[in-house]
């Protein structure tokens, strides 16, 4: 069945549906990873977005049970590919990508010149768009940056996992499961709390706080920023990932801004300005900290080697640190895994 992607600038791409046949809208973004569609589609950071995958064959290894899911459901609003593969082959595959999308009522389009689409997004910046079947009805496209979307992706109430000498609070702004798993692997007790939960005010006993990744414009998450400010004031070791990094930056008084088309992929090079080492990272973000707005006590920790944008900040003396990329990987390279170990040494 034919379907269309209509961008905010009225550019239209015609393709064929797979997954659910339904009309949706959201922010159109692209990811350049060559594997990892299961992880990406379930990553809450994509909430409200239509994801374009640049690798031209998608669906190759099917869908496993929940093993590699980064949350309990598909988070994207829709997915756009060049060629959809309906004949997967993998020992862990349980169903096809199309069947999986259907179950969650998520539409996909294939037979779209995804490279053309990406070049447009690269030149004009990410824009809103709609996936539609049949004649295009004009309508407002959903913009996930215009509201605080964290309530849609965060847990409702605190939940504790694992056992360990140290106890970490994970402020869930749409956390990927692998952040939790990364701590559990390191024998840490972890309590996942809602995005607007203040662990100090709630009198929890803990050693450090992790602020997770998540969707949307960081400035919308005012309550979380307030919480982080208090954590900093009370010298609580705090580690932010992705949105968590932006929130830590805002709490520290720096500014954030929207990137033209963001960084979404598994090949993003970053350099540690302190150790001078470089690693390849997995990234998924549309906003960044403006490093020139960092105050004196804060330093730029990582930068992106491609465009020089900020990839992490830290306090010059105290254990407040953050990275814009994903040390938990999944999808993507695992080079940054050591950062969890480093954070644990501050507890």
């Amino acid at each position: 069945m034919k379907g269309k992607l209509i961008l905010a600038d009225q550019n239209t791409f015609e393709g064929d549906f797979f997954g659910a046949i339904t009309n949706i809208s959201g922010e159109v973004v692209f990811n350049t990873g060559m594997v990892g569609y299961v992880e990406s589609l379930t990553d809450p950071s994509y909430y409200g977005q239509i994801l374009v995958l640049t690798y031209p064959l998608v669906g190759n290894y099917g869908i496993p049970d929940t093993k590699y899911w980064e949350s309990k459901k598909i988070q994207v609003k829709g997915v756009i590919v060049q060629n959809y593969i309906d004949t997967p082959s993998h020992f862990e595959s349980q169903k096809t990508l199309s069947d999986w999308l259907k179950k969650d009522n998520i539409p996909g389009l294939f037979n779209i010149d995804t490279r053309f689409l990406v070049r447009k997004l690269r030149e004009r910046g990410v824009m809103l768009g709609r996936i539609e079947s049949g004649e295009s009805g004009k309508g407002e496209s959903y913009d996930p940056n215009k509201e605080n979307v964290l309530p849609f992706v965060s847990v409702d109430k605190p939940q504790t996992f694992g056992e360990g000498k140290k106890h970490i609070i994970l402020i869930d702004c749409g956390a990927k499961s692998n952040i939790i798993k990364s701590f559990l692997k390191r024998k840490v007790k972890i309590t996942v709390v809602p995005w607007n939960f203040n662990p100090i005010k709630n009198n929890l006993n803990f050693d450090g706080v992790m602020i997770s990744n998540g969707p949307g414009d960081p400035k919308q998450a005012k309550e979380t920023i307030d919480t982080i400010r208090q954590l900093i004031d009370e010298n609580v070791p705090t580690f932010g990932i992705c949105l968590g990094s932006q929130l830590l930056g805002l709490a520290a008084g720096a500014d954030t801004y929207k990137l033209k088309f963001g960084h979404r992929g598994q090949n993003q090079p970053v350099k540690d300005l302190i150790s001078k080492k470089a690693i390849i990272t997995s990234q998924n973000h549309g906003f960044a900290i403006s490093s020139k707005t960092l105050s004196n006590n804060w330093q730029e920790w990582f930068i992106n080697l491609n465009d020089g944008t900020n990839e992490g900040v830290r306090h010059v003396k105290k254990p407040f640190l953050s990275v814009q990329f994903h040390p938990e990987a999944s999808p993507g390279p695992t080079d940054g895994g050591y950062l969890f170990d480093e954070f644990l040494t501050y507890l």
Partner: protein
Amino acid sequence: MNKLRKVLVLGSGALKIGEAGEFDYSGSQALKALKEESVETVLINPNIATIQTSQSLADKVYFLPVNPFFVEKVIKKEKPDGIFLSFGGQTALNCGLSLAKSGILEKNHVKVLGTAAKTIEITEDRKLFAMELEKIGVLIPKGGFASSLNEVLEVIKNLQFPLLVRSGYSLGGLGSAVVYNQKELTQVVSKALKHAPQVAIEEYLKHWKEIEYEIVRDGEGNKITVCNMENLDPLGIHTGESIVVAPSQTLNNYQYHLLRQISLKVIEQLKIVGECNIQFALNPQSNEYRVIEVNARLSRSSALASKATGYPLAYVAAKIGLGYTLSELKNSVTKSTSAFFEPSLDYIVVKVPKWDLQKFVGASETIGSEMKSVGEVMAIGRSFPESLQKAIRSLGNGQDGLLGGKSKINVSSKKLLSPNTQRIFSVAGELAKGTSVDEIYNETGVDRWYLYQLLEIVNFEKRLKEKKLKLSKHNLLQAKKLGFSDNLIAQVFKKDEQDIRQLRKGWAILPKVKHIDTLAAEYPAKTNYLYLTYHGEESEQGESGKGERRKVIVLGSGPYRIGSSVEFDWCCVTAALSFKKKGWETIIINCNPETVSTDYDNADKLYFEELTLERVLDIYDLEGGKIVLSFGGQIPNNLAIPLYEKKVPILGTDPVSIDIAENRHKFSKLLDSLNISQPAWQELKNSEVAHAFSKKIGFPVMVRPSYVLSGSAMNVAYSVPELKRYLTQATQVSPKYPVVISKFIENAKEIEIDGVASNGELVIYAISEHIENAGVHSGDATLVLPPQRLFIETIRQVKNDARAIIKALDITGPFNIQFLAKDNKVMVIELNLRASRSFPFVSKVTKNNFVEIAVEAILGNRLDCVFNTLNLDYVGVKASQFSFNRIKGADPKLRVEMLSTGEVGCFGEDLHEAFLKAILSTGGKIPQKGVFVSIGGDKNKMEFLEAAQEISKLNLKIYATKNTSQLLKDHGIKNTRVFKISEGRSPSAIDLVSNNRVDLAINISIPGESASDQRDGYVIRRVCIDTGVPLLTNLQSATEFILAISCKKADELNIKCWDEYVAC
């Protein structure tokens, strides 16, 4: 970073199976990188046909063997402070390792740049490697090592058959095989131990996936994986023999990054500095893996990865060797982002090997853990079917896609599903027959994902043929997306290829241009590395439109194969650069990943595309300009007439003239009209006429099919039964076409003239003579330039004939004419209106760049210089490299059909010196112990007497078979008689060779030998090849070799670089 003053780069020598054009690419990139740093460069590489030995790349080039003996001498003379071992394949690595171990590098203060010698040693020695990986808990196949048959028993105690036997220090996996029982194990191990000090015996991981990663690490420990690749064929088939796909298709995120992380862990442990390749086995039913090996150097796979991703691995590795870190380097494609990144592909790459086994008598089409392929093609598309079908067409085997319109279905059988060169076609045939994917998977281990993809192609073609699909816009677009050619679609619908093309254009079904930009469009590319796809709407044609600048499209040479390899790449690259120098916009089309022409910085645009009429027309439609097809060998040359018919402007000689040269009838008529003699010949449609004609002109006669796609059945028949046999062979090769029979002139000399003409006038020429008499293919023969043993009269006649032909055909551009000379009489046997295989040789020996001159001629520029190519103060010799050791069972005897895989060209003060250097460069050795001599024919025996006497004088023992032994004795030459196999007595010739009593074998057979003599000859030749004893099978070259070693000692050979022979 300590600034280096002078760096020595080792090349890989002649192209051979397992070590081919990929090392011209890597060496050339390394030299470019060094040049940018203003480091003085010295290159040792006898491969005169390479681009790296061009004038513009290295400061000094030594056309000498890449072995410790010669390299040490060059080091002593040049006193470099650094040496690169990793750009010249296994040859350079082994040579460098030996120099490092013997302390020669240290003594001469030469630093190994990049990965340290110690690390190389670990990666090359399976035992050390296993120990190193065990330290970091990385798994390798279970098994052990053995240096003797006794140790084998110890190793296999805890293992079960089948087992895999591998040998260390191997080039392309020599001596590795799967064995199913004790007997096979013993056989394989005995053979392997003759070539290597130890073997590894391992669990055989049946049907595990084979995955490779290409990794770069800098001296500071920053590291990336540039590309991963998946072999379509499961483990057990050499990656050089396998269809390879990039990136991997069947790995999920976890597996992809698991193997990636292990790759990084391993190279960190090994402390690789530069580039390396790591191969994994992955269980298809779990996440279990094994590390198979690490190649601590640029390899075939890294060349492929470079082309597949656009990441210049060799260039970056060279910079790292000089001390740069990855983050200090820029991405060569975007020129703005960092070189420290991992390319993201938004297309799929398929590599398919190219074999030429049908040329070898006695070779089997089975493939396995040893390499046999002579080349490869790569195709880029946005679906697997699109890329695969493109790749298959690019092979130039006449197969028009996976099923190729032909009904292969009937000939297919399960047996053909075992690994062989045609397996992919058998699999397609089985699928077409309705065999299930599961069944084929169980038989082949080819992942079901690929089988489902093949099934899509097969089903579509079936539906086309069964007329279930109409010729509609939708179906045509589907067909093109699946990679079908216009020609195939035309056949199905009983139309002409051009009708489909017109229809397609009318429906606006056109391929779109896409960039390879390393970052999946995330950042703009500054280079024009392009491919075409039907999966897309937007064409990214780049800045230049039609007709803004003078534009030329240079057609490349396609896959390397016997008869066409790096020499044509040199011609194409040189031509493109020459046009560029003249202000033309240049475009290269080629599909071979082991070439320099497919580096995106040689031309303004590179289309990595198939060299078919359809695709060349597609590109011409997009780009316009003019086409030059005289530098890429026969593949582009064959497009001359079809392109001309489509009114595509072709530069150089008029295609009508090309047609005259290529058409035997027209060419013969031309020669007659010019009063130029030629051997009698006729084209014959049936065998009765063939026999009558042969009787008329008298035996021997040469038999060949008149139309040959690849691998022919060229033979010389000396008798009626032989004629009968060869006729059958020839008609089998191309049943539709008549057979050509020509008079074979015995004991004639062969002469070639390479040259350039302008509007029918000779501009420059070089005359070379063959060492071997006619009967050895010109591509296998040893060439001497300038000729040393030709009469002035002969030279004049050759020149005059050439002039007459050039005038008559109004040639503009390169040409090559082959002559026979006997008793002062000259006959023309062939004319090529294109650059020939010997163009780089004659260009480099005379230091007149024939290709540059040809480009000038093509552009209509007058060149008034007088070129001296005859009266030179030195001699250049081009010798052929054979790879018989790779092709089990093949008879290594030289014939009229070409068998060599590569060549070298060396200089000397006289013929003997140049010849000896050339032979040593192809792996020949100066005998120290004894020589085995077996010469058929009385005349041959007598001719060899002088050489035999020289062998005696050298104090080498002579062993000879019956008649040869007797004749030598009669002439007072001491020798020991050995027995032929058929004589059934010892010591036999085989004992002699297998016991290492001789280090040279001369075996000359004659036509019309008895069957038992033929068999004896074949066996002894084969034993020599299998045990590594140098073998000579041609009387003239054997004699020249003996004379050369009798007057030159190795130590007396001059160590002089190119410039010292030929001033600029």
